[in-house]
């Protein structure tokens, strides 16, 4: 066999045809009513809607628990940190839209966005804040982790409600993405609420909420894939 034979053999697949009754069965197999449906908005509109929901969620939760973190930060640090959170919030929103719509354009390989967000926050806080100077590391950290995980759980549940309106084709990947996004909402809330501006505290306890959420998302995604 040469290359042309190989190509020709592959092309032969185009000649395969089903029985003539298949199309008929497809049509009669549908429900009797074919009501009109309203198509989902464009990718851009959906991305902004999800981002707006993310921003509102973070602000509402922070309003309930207090904006002590925002108050404690210098204006320059606020610009960098909240700018970073906004950028990744938008990227996560776009990623979720990709996961929710069959055949949507994939802009980055799986895992890049999640890893990028964690790395970016780590580098930013490492640069901006003192490192590991905090006393009673565990005592101050556990409440932050708890709040972050609660935010992740609530945001994740809201995300699932949104995804059920769409049609997810890559279950494992989308579950992981949503879980990381949910964990990131916890990071965002903690950035507004927590006045402990120490790099070690933020990396371990704030990003820890994202790690816990990612792990939960990975497990849920695997089980959904197995369950079919």
């Amino acid at each position, binding site marked *: 066999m040469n290359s042309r034979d190989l190509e020709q053999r592959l092309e032969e*697949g185009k000649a*395969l*045809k*089903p029985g003539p009754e*298949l*199309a008929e069965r497809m049509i009669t197999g549908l429900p009797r009513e074919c009501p009109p449906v309203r198509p989902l908005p464009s990718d851009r509109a959906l991305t902004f809607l999800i981002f707006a929901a993310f921003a509102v969620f973070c602000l509402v939760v922070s309003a309930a628990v207090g904006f002590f973190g925002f108050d404690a930060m210098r204006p320059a640090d606020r610009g960098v940190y909240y700018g970073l959170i906004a950028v990744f919030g938008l990227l996560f929103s776009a990623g979720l839209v990709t996961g929710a719509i069959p*055949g949507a354009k994939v802009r980055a390989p799986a895992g890049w966005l999640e890893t990028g967000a964690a790395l970016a926050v780590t580098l930013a806080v490492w640069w901006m804040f003192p490192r590991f100077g905090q006393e009673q590391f565990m005592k101050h950290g556990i409440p932050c982790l708890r709040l972050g995980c609660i935010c992740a759980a609530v945001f994740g549940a809201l995300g699932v409600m949104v995804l059920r309106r769409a049609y997810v084709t890559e279950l494992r990947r989308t579950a992981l993405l949503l879980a990381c996004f949910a964990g990131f909402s916890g990071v965002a809330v903690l950035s507004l609420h927590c006045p402990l501006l120490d790099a070690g505290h933020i990396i371990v306890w704030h990003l820890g909420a994202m790690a816990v959420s990612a792990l939960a998302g990975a497990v849920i995604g695997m089980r959904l894939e197995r369950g079919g």
Partner: protein
Amino acid sequence: MIRYQQGDAVAASKLAEELSARLYRFFVLQVRNHQEAEDLVQDCWLRIHKARHTYRSGEPLLPWVYAIARRTQVDRYRKRHRIARHELPDDGAAEQIAAASSDSVEKGRLPELSELLKSLPERQRETVLLLKVAGLSLEEVARATGATVGAVKQRAHRAYATLRRLFGVEE
């Protein structure tokens, strides 16, 4: 597709006619069983019907259709193996099912092409099917398989290299 979304039953029929052959080819070359392929086509069409609101005008239709087709096949495969694990004795049940499927494969063209493709890993096989049999572009295959264009190129390259190596293709 737009008219189908608007509730036009005639448009739905026309779309079903146009898609049936495409979907059938996509499934039959992977499952190698005509009956199962036709069942998958029907299942896929039902899912297309339920998910029709997720298609937006201006977006390419075929990647949307094939993305749903892929999901249909994965779900069917996992369901069969879940049933095989729980309901049949664990002494080669999966092999029995595979043997029963391949017994009913039509002789002639189908086995030759499906033999070619059988040797490939799943992702590479579907990439070759979508590129060569379905005639999609690299961008469209990337959308349908939830991958980047670079990943699709890599899979295609590896698939062709494997096929050449296995079938002793002279360069």
